[in-house]
């Protein structure tokens, strides 16, 4: 019996391609991807920045378990856009192949200008301003919802919880900080509220100064309108002031729901208010508690941050981890640290097994991940607990809001 040893033209081509590609893959296997993680770990956004940083600290172990070789360079942007820009330059000069960040939209845009000029991929982990993916950046992708998506999904979840609990809200008030994020959310609310068709009368929209000592006057004003539902866009310190003044003024709405903002799930909120922190709700992209990747990440998180609770950090830490995962996965496929080729691989991302709720991580032509879902999360026994959608929920939503009095 003779065996044909004749090579077809196709086999030769495949062999040649493999021969050309092999050094790159071998090189990639021998190489480590250096990722600059730019976060506001000090200054105004330090609380969120530190929370995200804890995710970055937990990531290397899990990424190594998944077969990715990365080195993470932790960089503080000091809650300052100028510092973010110069630190991005510095990170690239010091050999970072990919940058991730940066929590604040202003910082993110400042970094994007640098990465675009230097042709280095930039994976945005948290930043909601729509223009980030509307300015035609070729070296940027965003694995986070836009402000509009946050509000739309947040309002949709209000409708879902009304249906799930057969509860009706007649009047609502929208309270928001007058900072960049709060104003963007207000604009999104103005545009989206009439379209979602919620059967609720929005009686007032109140902007407050986040530097205010307290929100007693704002709460007095809300109380005078007597709404069933208070929707709010706050940061943790303002959320504390708001709840504290509601309790002092014995104002008891049926529900307090944030349609897409931080504040209610920060450790300082739980610490400051104790049992009064319970039962407020927020609609946000959230870690899928039932996903195996989330569970693996939680184990890595607890090991890296033994003094912190994953339930508190899961939003910030989860998106931080996913940003790093996207970069590592692209590097594995690209087999090179060359910016343009790495960026091509980033754009072709398709990760089905990940941490946050939603479909596979992919990017559209603008670099936006369109598959990120939102969950309605409620504080139950001072733990942020997913209550909707049902397929990922860990508990039933509690509505109407139990009385403030008698909780402690």
């Amino acid at each position, binding site marked *: 019996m003779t065996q044909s040893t004749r090579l077809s033209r196709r086999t030769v081509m495949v062999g040649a391609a493999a021969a050309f590609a092999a050094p790159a893959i071998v090189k990639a296997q021998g190489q480590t991807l250096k990722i600059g993680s730019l976060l506001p770990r*000090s200054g105004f956004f*330090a609380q969120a920045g530190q929370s995200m940083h804890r995710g970055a600290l937990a990531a290397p172990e899990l990424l190594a378990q998944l077969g990715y070789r990365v080195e993470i360079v932790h960089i503080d942007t000091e809650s300052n856009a100028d510092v973010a820009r110069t630190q991005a330059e510095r990170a690239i000069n010091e050999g970072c192949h990919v940058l991730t960040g940066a929590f604040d939209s202003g910082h993110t845009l400042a970094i994007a200008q640098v990465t675009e000029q230097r042709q280095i991929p930039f994976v945005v982990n948290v930043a909601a301003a729509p223009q980030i993916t509307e300015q035609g950046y070729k070296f940027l992708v965003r694995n986070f919802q836009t402000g509009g998506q946050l509000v739309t999904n947040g309002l949709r979840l209000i409708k879902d919880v009304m249906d799930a609990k057969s509860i009706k809200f007649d009047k609502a008030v929208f309270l928001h900080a007058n900072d960049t994020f709060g104003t963007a959310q207000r604009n999104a609310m103005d545009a989206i509220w009439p379209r979602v068709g919620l059967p609720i009368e929005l009686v007032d929209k109140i902007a407050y*100064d986040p530097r205010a000592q307290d929100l007693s*006057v704002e709460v007095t004003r809300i109380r*005078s309108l007597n709404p069933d539902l208070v929707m709010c866009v706050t940061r943790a310190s303002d959320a504390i002031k708001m709840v504290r003044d509601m309790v*002092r003024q014995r104002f008891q709405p049926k529900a307090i729901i944030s349609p897409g903002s931080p504040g209610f799930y920060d450790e*300082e909120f739980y610490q400051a208010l104790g049992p009064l922190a319970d039962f407020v709700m927020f609609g946000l992209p959230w870690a899928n508690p039932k996903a195996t990747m989330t569970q693996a990440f939680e184990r890595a998180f607890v090991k890296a941050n033994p003094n912190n609770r994953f339930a508190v950090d899961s939003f910030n830490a989860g998106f931080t981890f996913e940003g790093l995962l996207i970069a590592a996965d692209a590097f594995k496929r690209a087999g090179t640290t060359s910016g343009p080729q790495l960026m091509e691989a980033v754009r072709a991302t398709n990760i089905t097994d990940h941490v946050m709720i939603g479909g596979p991580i992919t990017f559209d032509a603008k670099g936006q991940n369109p598959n990120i879902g939102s969950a309605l999360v409620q504080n139950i026994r001072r733990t942020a607990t997913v209550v909707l959608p049902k397929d990922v929920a860990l508990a039933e939503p509690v509505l109407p809001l139990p009385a403030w009095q008698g909780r402690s």
Partner: protein
Amino acid sequence: MLWSLYANVLVQGVLTGLVYGLMALGLSVIFGVVRVVNFAHGEFAVVGMYAAFILFRSFGIDPFLSMLPIALAFFVIGYGLQRTLINPFVSRPEHEQFILLVGVAIILVNGTLMIFGPDARSANLPYSFDSWDIGPVIVDKVRVYAAIAALAVSGLLFAFFRFTDTGVAIRACADNLTGAAVVGLDVKKLYALTFGLGLACVGAAGALMVTLTDATPMIAPAYTLLAFTIVIIGGMGSMTGAIVGGLLIGVAEALASVLIAPSMKTMASFGLLVLVLALRPQGLLGKRA
């Protein structure tokens, strides 16, 4: 219904304004005598807040009680600071004093950030969430206690300056420094006492503030700015002016948030500041230079 809204808001403004007044009082006292502007004023207030927070969390001491030892500790710190660090700068140009105290402010902010982190810390008193109903007006218990304590501390300080020999001597230094030195007053010591008293006021105000709001390092510059606004409105160096300025700011902010918009309340205080500077540059109760 509308008048009850205004009544509630007005009461809140008055009560908050009294605490603001106490905080600004320290700044006014120091400037009135030593002629040094304490640009680290808000930062010291935040340190006072953290001190009250620690005493409450670790030993369960109510901030309304701990304000006394905190004020004493701040007096000692102020006295020492004036004798060692600030005194050499008293006769130097104002920009050098400014840089020195901004440096102190930066050290205090970053020190508290390093020790306590960026999270807000609050003293959850057992009666933190209690309030009284007086007709349609709801009055927060802690806000009333804080306002009473602020009035008491201010009263004590007024009495000290009016009825004690040391107080009179300090006022003499403020009125005529050369004359005070000629009659043999120990000006350096009196300056140190004044700085100590100023910081004692800030420490006490910080302890009261922690019952109303949360301590966080990043709030310090806002407090410095607030104290400056109050003191300029009331009149630099005028103790009564500081209390009046605090009340005015508290009420103006509260009313502006109802009449205009809550996000505009800071604008109201700065509007008031501009108005005072334009019509009466020395402040409402200040002396013309």
